[in-house]
């Protein structure tokens, strides 16, 4: 095949779109399968998810290669922003096989809405995790008997929504996918759930809808801002400091503005998340400069040296003018928007006190839906923090770091205690999720200054790793609960016991997964928690020197409670000698196949976390550099 065939072939566009829409295509296919052919429907759905998994593995390999090419040449070239900028600059001169993993197409030109996809070390692992858990969840759905077609179609649409959320870089597109997740989930819980399914489904729906509305408001508010001043500011900076990165950013922005002008607009309104990052970053930097100048002025005032005072005053005025002219997202605006976004994502995480939808939804949802819910949907919260809330509103994120960390710690402790008091097996696992996701929030929150940024980096890496680890262990636990529920038809911990002798293989696999959740070294739950706590001691938000230290102690002490409820659960379910029912069949081969990948990955990630960290950390470090640079750049 001649090279020219690939001349305009945007490989990454098709790959990422494939990951998003292949499940939907298979959902469409399901419509044509004759009624009653339940197994064929299941096999079709399985094929859809398996193909998606394959595609996401391709994406992972591509990402790894991309990172490898940049690792030696350009330290910052691998970031999404850099790749998107380069792609925009090169737009006219495209002539190669496009593998930069960003793809941009106009969608609703009137409102500058784009079909804009991109992948980096933050989204790729979550995409792969989603694809994997979806395959396993389809495997776990095999024994769903009523309305199979509808169930599978909704399931596949849900997968499309999740994938789209992780890959979208246009806020509007992100929001559309975010909502696409919501409805199938509502029906999956509300129609295939347990006895209180309607209550649970509506609760889930309303909570999440509340979050969505808050995000929607923030999104519209961002859109209404005119970003043109940013262009002048970036140009000015690029002239002052000759840096490749700045020049690139200015040039790409120029391109974007020109493009809007070309379509007859005078202002630049956008849903481009990466562009909004830049606005947030630069606004925060200007604010920082201004506050520095003001502080300097006040210090000089004490010196009574009129010449210096005059100098400082003039400096302050200059900076104030710059701020006036170029600061698009003022601190107040950032605060309001950040709180909206934060609550929106914290509901998904879920953070105490917005968490009560989770136990109900889990208890009522069928096993595979619980797996998706715990494994993937909760990660949307953490992903939203990292991709949207933090980078767009860094000023507010820093000012509120103390509160975010505090609520993270509250979730950790509260979730663990609440889990200990549960008698419903599934509810216990649900509360353990709240506790574990608290580490994610804490790890992200422990913002530190540039010269100590490695500690925050451990926190963010810990948070990311914890998301992946929890994305494995939590679906694993729900699956294991589902297996026993299928046999006993109840989940009452007081009426279990003695399973170890009745179902030894099942017990062995469960114990590994539960130990992983307990944070046992050598299994996946450990690194995330450990990194987070290591980073937390250093956390010293302005004005509260002791916060990080107390948080670290609380987070570390919670491992005792975690061990308490997990071991107590193991004792009540597996140990002892009286099985709750005389004939308990050992897990079937299908169930074994569903559990095995989780167990294997839990061990792999625990023993060698670099298998993931090596290609995740660069993106997180770049994000952190951008964020930390807003305070003392």
């Amino acid at each position, binding site marked *: 095949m001649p090279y020219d065939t690939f001349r305009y072939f945007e490989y990454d566009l098709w790959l990422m779109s494939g990951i998003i829409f292949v499940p939907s295509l298979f959902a469409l296919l399901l419509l044509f399968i004759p009624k009653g052919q339940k197994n064929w429907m299941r096999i079709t759905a399985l094929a859809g998810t398996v193909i998606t998994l394959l595609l996401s593995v391709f994406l992972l390999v591509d990402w790894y290669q991309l990172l490898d090419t940049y690792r030696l040449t350009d330290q910052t070239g691998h970031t999404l922003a850099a790749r998107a900028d380069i792609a925009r600059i090169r737009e006219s001169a495209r002539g190669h096989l496009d593998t930069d993993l960003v793809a941009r197409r106009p969608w609703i030109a009137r409102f500058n809405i784009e079909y804009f996809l991109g992948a980096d070390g933050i989204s790729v692992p979550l995409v792969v995790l989603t694809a994997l858990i979806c395959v396993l969840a389809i495997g776990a759905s095999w024994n769903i008997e009523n309305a199979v077609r509808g169930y599978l179609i909704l399931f596949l649409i849900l997968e499309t929504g999740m994938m789209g959320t992780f890959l979208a870089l246009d806020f509007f597109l992100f929001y559309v996918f975010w909502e696409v997740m919501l409805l199938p989930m509502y029906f999956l819980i509300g129609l295939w759930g347990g006895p209180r399914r309607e209550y649970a489904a509506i609760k889930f729906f309303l909570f999440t809808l509340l979050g969505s509305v808050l995000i929607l408001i923030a999104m519209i508010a961002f859109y209404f801002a005119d970003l043109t001043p940013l262009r002048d500011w970036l140009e000015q900076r690029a002239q002052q400091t000759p840096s490749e990165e700045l020049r690139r950013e200015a040039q790409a922005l120029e391109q974007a503005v020109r493009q809007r002008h070309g379509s007859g607009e005078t202002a630049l309104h956008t849903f481009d998340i990466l562009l909004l990052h830049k606005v947030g970053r630069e606004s925060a930097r200007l604010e920082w400069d201004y506050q520095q100048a003001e502080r300097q002025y006040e210090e000089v005032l004490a010196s009574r040296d009129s010449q210096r005072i005059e100098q400082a005053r003039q400096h302050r005025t200059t900076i104030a003018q710059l701020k006036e002219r170029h600061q698009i997202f003022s601190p107040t605006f950032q605060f309001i928007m950040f709180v909206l976004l934060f609550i929106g994502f914290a509901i998904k995480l879920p953070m105490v006190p917005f968490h009560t939808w989770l136990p109900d939804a889990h208890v009522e949802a069928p096993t595979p839906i619980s797996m998706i819910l715990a494994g993937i949907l909760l990660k949307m919260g953490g992903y939203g923090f990292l991709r949207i809330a933090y980078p767009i509103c860094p000023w507010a994120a820093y000012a509120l770091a103390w509160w975010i960390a505090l609520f993270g710690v509250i979730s950790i402790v509260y979730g663990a205690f*609440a889990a200990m008091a549960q008698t419903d097996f599934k509810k216990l696992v649900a509360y353990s999720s709240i506790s574990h996701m608290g580490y994610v929030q804490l790890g992200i929150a422990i913002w530190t200054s540039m010269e100590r940024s490695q500690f925050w980096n451990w926190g963010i890496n810990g948070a990311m790793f914890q998301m992946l680890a929890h994305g494995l262990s939590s679906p694993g636990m729900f699956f294991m609960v589902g297996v026993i529920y299928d046999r006993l038809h109840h989940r009452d911990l007081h009426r279990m016991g*003695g399973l170890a002798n009745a179902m030894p293989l099942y017990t062995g696999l469960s114990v590994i997964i539960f130990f992983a959740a307990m944070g046992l070294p050598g299994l996946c739950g450990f690194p995330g928690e450990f990194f987070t*706590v290591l980073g937390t*001691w250093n956390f010293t938000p302005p004005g509260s020197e002791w916060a990080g230290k107390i948080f670290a102690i609380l987070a570390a002490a919670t491992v005792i409670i975690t061990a*308490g409820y997990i071991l107590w659960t193991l004792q009540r379910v*597996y140990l002892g*000698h009286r099985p709750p029912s005389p004939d308990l069949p050992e897990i079937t081969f299908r169930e074994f196949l569903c559990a095995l990948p989780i167990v294997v990955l839990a061990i792999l990630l625990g023993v060698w976390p670099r298998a993931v960290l090596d290609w995740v*950390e660069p993106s997180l*470090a770049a994000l952190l550099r951008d964020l930390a640079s807003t305070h003392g750049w």
Partner: protein
Amino acid sequence: MLENPGWLFVAATLLPLISFILLLIGGKHWGRVAGWIATAAIGGAFILSAIGAAYYLPHSGLFGHSHSSEAKPASQEEHRGASHTHGARREHNHGHEYSSLLERDPAEPPWQGGLVWAQTSSGESGQATALRLGFYVDGLTVIMFLMITLVATLIHIFSTGYMAEELQPQVEDHQAYAVRAGRYPRFFTYMSLFCFSMLNLVLADNLFQIFISWELVGICSYLLIGYYYERSSASNAANKAFITNRVGDAGFIIGSAILWTYCGTLTLPDTVRLQRNAKGEMVRELEPGLFSRLRMPNKDTHGDPLPGQLDKYFGNFVRVAPIKPAAEVADTRYRLAENGGWVLVFGGHFHGEDLTEETAIAASSAPTNMGLSVMPYWALVLAGIGVFLGCVGKSAQFPLHVWLPDAMEGPTPVSALIHAATMVAAGVYLVGRAFPLFAPEVLLVIAYTGAVTLFIAASIALVQTDIKRVLAYSTVSQLGFMMLALGVGGWIAGLFHLLTHAFFKALLFLGSGSVIHGCHHEQDMMKMGGLYEKMKITAVTMLAGVLAIAGAPLFSGWYSKDAIMVSALAFVVHHPQHILLFLLPLITVAMTAFYMFRLWYLTFTGKPRDEHVYEHAHESPWVMTLPLIVLALFSVVVAWGWPPWDPHASALEHYLDHEMPIYLHPDADNPLQDAYLAPVRKYAEQPEAFPEIQLPDPHTLAGLLALLSAGIGFLLATTVYYWGYLDPEATQQQFARVYTFLWEKWHFDAVYRWIAVRPAMVLARICRWFDLYVIDGLVDGSARATVKISQWDGKFDLGIIDGLVNLTADIIYAVAAWLRHVQTGLLRNYVLFLALAAVGIFALVSYILALVG
């Protein structure tokens, strides 16, 4: 010659891991073979360790030809301090010199190696950016490897006999009234995992890796205590063990986090690693470990010696105080101060001349490559206490000692290996290994913890009747002795006792296992008696263990206990306010002799108290007695030196002396001024240098007192339980309250139930209640309120809005009715109305458009 014999120890560590993986995957159906595989693995590990030790011994200083022995003529008696090695030690392994390590031959011990387990790219390299897995093999590692692999091999052999009944397809568990499948392979699976974890713990060169192993040995202990999980007592004990240990582990994590934050590393010794420099070339770079980051080195990073007047700080923490009172700015200036609130951290490149006493030191509050940094002194103390809390949990020290006696629910070989010889000693090992990190305040806490523990545990052991529980409390007590020794600066004494104790306590446990096996799982000593006739080998070997633990001369325990008593005495002489640190162990020596002989007499002598047990009792097969004999032999000779009757001539002690952290050595031309420890060490080794202290030679004094105390205990036990001059029952009734107090183990379990377990459960229920009624109450309440509002809204709609609409309709109808009169049928009227309507609509639309536009 191997280039780096350290890999032998890595291989020794990995062998049991391989065995674990094999058994985990396929062991279920292998029966007896599973036991052989595990035994072969740990036996192979022993052989590898022995080969490694053979490589190490020429460097050990045991044979006297250390590097600088010629340069420095021995100034003291050979057996006291082995001072001829001090000069060498200064350049030796504890990382107080930056330059030598880079040029060092990797074949010279300590052997090192490792890899990065996780790293971040922010921050300066080497400053809290990488968590490593690595190995560090020095003399302490070597001797621990030998001990662990030897004891573990013997216990594995013993277990192939002891666990044989698990080979049957059906095993009846009398305690749980259950019949279950035998699970012989599973036992060895867990044992292999344990051996791997334990060896990894000893091999590790950093706190992070130690923590990993720490938790892994904990989980193995959990699995093996809960081996008979049909019994609720076993699963409860397993939970208790792990959760209590987690309390300590939380402290360990916090301690690690503190050190990580201020020092920027968790590696203990200095390491050399390959690093990519700015040009992309791989270069060998030295990374200082925690020890040399916290304690003053003797050279700066440029290889220049530090100014002479700083000699007194060498090997010590360097306290500084900020020159400006408020240290708000990151880069501030400090000066040396006797009791300053900050400690210098030597984490990066620095010049010797920056460190003079007159000028200020520019130090950062973050670990940095470009200079010195500082950490608050309280944080150093807290870090030490945190790490020590981990040791308290693992080594079952007061107040976390409660799990170990319950852990006796596991099979007896497990008690011997994990809960006597190795895992519980890990806490002591870590205190010894991380010794340079501990500030004097922490050492004092360690000493008191040990003293209180050894006394409490021994007092409880006096009255217990379950043979394994007596041994368990005895273990707790002996571990307390070790902690006490370390806390008062008796580094050698503490680790010496760890090694000797491992042998005789493993022997005692295996002996008790043999008794229990012979008596068909009877553990109550009150039902035994007179068993000597039935099991002579067990009885005699156990007697050796009893004599060793009681401290009978020429038995291994005598040497190590003597060393502990000397350390304690030397400490108390210098710090008379801490006299308890000597009195408590002295009394406890008597109690130890008493309860151990009580155990032996009750079991093996006198008349059988339960005919049924006695009749069925039998000696164990050779796979069980052979390990007993070997261990008995070791319990006697392991501490011998020449001449054996000199308690301070022990070869093992000399060996450890060479491994002692350098700053503990009282060295004439190296004036160590650690106010807390240095005089103590000096007094213990050279009492003649302290003419003002009017006491006999501390060695003689402590030795005699200990021997006297042990003799009293022995005599008392013999009087009561052998000669029968005193009726124990009557004594019990006379001291009923004391007896109950001891029998109830000082009520620790009850107290913890009230102050920890119950409150936790109550808090948990409160959280659940809060969720159900407060948060969900709010949620559901607002939902209900919304529904109510919408119902009202509906009524409003129906009554008022619809009413209005209907009213409008009515009006329109009325108007229309009236208009009917207008309906003239004339076309022009209709056109007029249409035109008016069009104008109205147009006006409305343009008004709206104007608003929008």
